[in-house]
């Protein structure tokens, strides 16, 4: 009897938990009460989100998780990394299993509207490209007529590929693969002539090859892939926390705030915007977000500003070797442009 009552209560609690979520309790309060941030990341893409040799998650996306945790708790280690596949990522978010999604996810119209997600910004401007073997003698994607192409299913790349080949009146055969690792294996075995995914992903994949020099990434970028973090639709207060934490990292680079000089600048800087950002002015921006005054300072201290994170995880000195390109500050000809902290 006791047992069945217990089970009944458990079942009822689970169902009501789902309801409570739907009724819109603030995610920030939930996260604070839990004491940990559930961050939905890639299952493993070197440079963006992958566990290192010691099992610690590292990467460009992971750094944002750390920054958000630091902004909320003042401690960058209070993150639970939940690996999500391209197929289950949206369900993980809408079901509340993760607090926000940062998984090389392209911001598209239908995902923002129909799938009921809110993208809060772009942390990496990407585009879809092709990788081929050098000895294939192909120098442009337009020469890929009749080729067999490996592609990860369940991504926007599938539709881009179909559109691009249709627009250029070319034909192809798709070899659908489930994971990046499988695509890599098929491509290396010659089961496909070309491998297509986001150019950053291609660079990351190529970096892991035994002979990266024998493979080239074709110059054509066939799509716009703004990758960014997403929260549940209507969860705007929580979305603000993610958006402005990310903007703080970008603004920090613009103002020259680095993890090395941040403590010094917090006390000595005469720039009012820097003072507001780092919580040393009387305007308490943190309180407006529901966070401490030192939120942005903690976030930047977690792994440095945007530029530092980029250089350490996917930049030109890493095996991934990505140039800043579109992801440079607007003052450097890139697209990074954060609204003012005021």
């Amino acid at each position, binding site marked *: 009897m006791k047992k069945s009552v217990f089970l009944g209560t458990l079942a009822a609690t689970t169902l009501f938990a789902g*309801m409570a979520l739907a009724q819109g309790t603030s995610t920030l309060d939930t996260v604070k009460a839990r004491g940990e941030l559930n961050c939905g990341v890639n299952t493993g893409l070197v440079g963006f989100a992958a566990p290192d040799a010691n099992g610690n998650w590292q990467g460009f996306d992971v750094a944002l998780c750390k920054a958000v945790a630091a902004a909320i708790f003042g401690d960058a280690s209070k993150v639970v990394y939940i690996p999500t596949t391209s197929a289950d990522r949206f369900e993980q978010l809408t079901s509340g299993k993760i607090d926000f999604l940062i998984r090389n996810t392209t911001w598209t119209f*239908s*995902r923002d509207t*129909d799938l009921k997600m809110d993208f809060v910004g772009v942390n990496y401007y990407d585009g879809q490209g092709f990788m081929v073997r050098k000895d294939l003698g192909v120098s442009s994607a337009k020469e890929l007529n009749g*080729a067999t192409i490996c592609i990860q299913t*369940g991504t926007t790349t599938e539709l881009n590929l179909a559109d691009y080949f249709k627009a250029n009146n070319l034909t192809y055969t798709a070899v*659908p693969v*489930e994971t990046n690792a499988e695509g890599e294996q098929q491509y290396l075995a010659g089961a496909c*002539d070309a491998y297509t995914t986001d150019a950053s992903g291609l660079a990351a994949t190529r970096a892991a090859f035994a002979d990266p020099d024998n493979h080239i990434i074709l110059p054509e970028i066939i799509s716009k892939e703004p990758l960014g973090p997403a929260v549940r639709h209507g969860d705007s207060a929580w979305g603000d926390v993610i958006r402005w934490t990310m903007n703080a990292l970008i603004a920090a680079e613009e103002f020259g705030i680095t993890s090395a000089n941040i403590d010094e600048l917090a006390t000595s800087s005469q720039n009012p915007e820097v003072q507001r950002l780092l919580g040393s002015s009387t305007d308490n921006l943190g309180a407006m977000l529901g966070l401490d005054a030192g939120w942005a300072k903690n976030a930047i201290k977690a792994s440095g500003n945007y530029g530092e994170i980029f250089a350490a995880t996917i930049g030109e000195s890493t095996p991934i070797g990505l140039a800043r390109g579109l992801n440079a500050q607007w003052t450097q000809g890139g697209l990074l442009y954060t609204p003012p902290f005021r």
Partner: protein
Amino acid sequence: MAVVTEDPKAGFRLGMLIYDTRYRSITIQIVVLFLFMAGAAWLIDNLIRNLEALGRGIDFGFLWNRAGYDINQTLVEYTNDSTHARAMLVGLLNTLLIAFLGCIAATVLGVIAGVLRLSKNWVVGRLMTVYVEIFRNIPLLLWILMIYTIFTEALPAPNAFRGENPAASMALFDTVAFTNRYTAIPWLVFDNSLGWLQLGPIWLNLDLTVIIVALVGGFLINRAILKRATRIQEATGIRPTTWWQSLIALFGPIILVKFVLGTHFDYPSLQGFNFTGGLQVSNSLVALWLALTLYTAAFIAEIVRGGINAISRGQTEAAFALGLRPGRTMSLIILPQAMRVIIPPLISQYLNLTKNSSLAIAVGYMDLRGTLGGITLNQTGRGLEAMLLLMLIYLLISLTISGAMNVYNQSVKLKER
């Protein structure tokens, strides 16, 4: 004063529903049924409410939107401009194709392996035991992946067929190319193709229809000829010569069709990145088919062995006493009786094979799970709707197979009079 006793059978009181043993069991069943339905309704209502609260009500409208993706194996007309419903149909046909091929091959292989396992020849018997034990004790997914990986890694890429001294060459007089992507084989093409006939949403390939009609028609005519011969034999004792009539009936129509349609073979040749011409049978199809066949046949072999063992030894001895050789004994006496034991578990193996074919996604074979439950689901984000549809379709396929096999079972089962 006389006491009038009421007739107990006359009235019906509400209390009798509980206290009368005639009604009690029905009452309990109805109450349980209502409670169960209320519980189910509560769960479904809860789900729908929660989805609506999230702004994601159940809506199947996405099926009529443009799919936008390409599928590498299509049995019917499909382009990326087709609808998601069309993509679902393509996937469904691919599922049915692999299930059909798999069931036939698994039955043939399973019966052979099951009979051979009982062989008096020690080596043959043990070999079959090894086969059965290896295949049924390793997960199917591993077999699929292994066979696919062997194809991918061991066979040459189409590029290897290129040049003056190619690293690989085509087999069977330069007509068949085994590559690590597909097997390119010659294929029939029709000079005077009849094209397609559209019947509502269904497109009918007229060439294929004509061929099937010719084959089935020839077979039916042949059966009528043989029946007539048997009738004459039973009446007169003399069987008329029918072999030339049979030959004409079986092959006449199909030869006629060949001349009318004007068929010739189209041979594959290397053009650009890939082979063109002929038919390309993708490795994912072959790997999946092989793995499903070998795996399910191991189970069918055990079912066949059990069925044969269930027939009493006396039947064999009686057949031997009549002078039948072992092979004839098996095919005429033992197997027909064993069928009664074999059919019911065989049905579940067919159902298993069909459902297991949904592992196709592991090798990129675009079956129903790959199109509707894979790309469509991911592109539209309609997870619940797609999964409900998938479950419904697999249920319908399984029930159809099961129903057809039960009809067959009725016809072979022991008829008690």
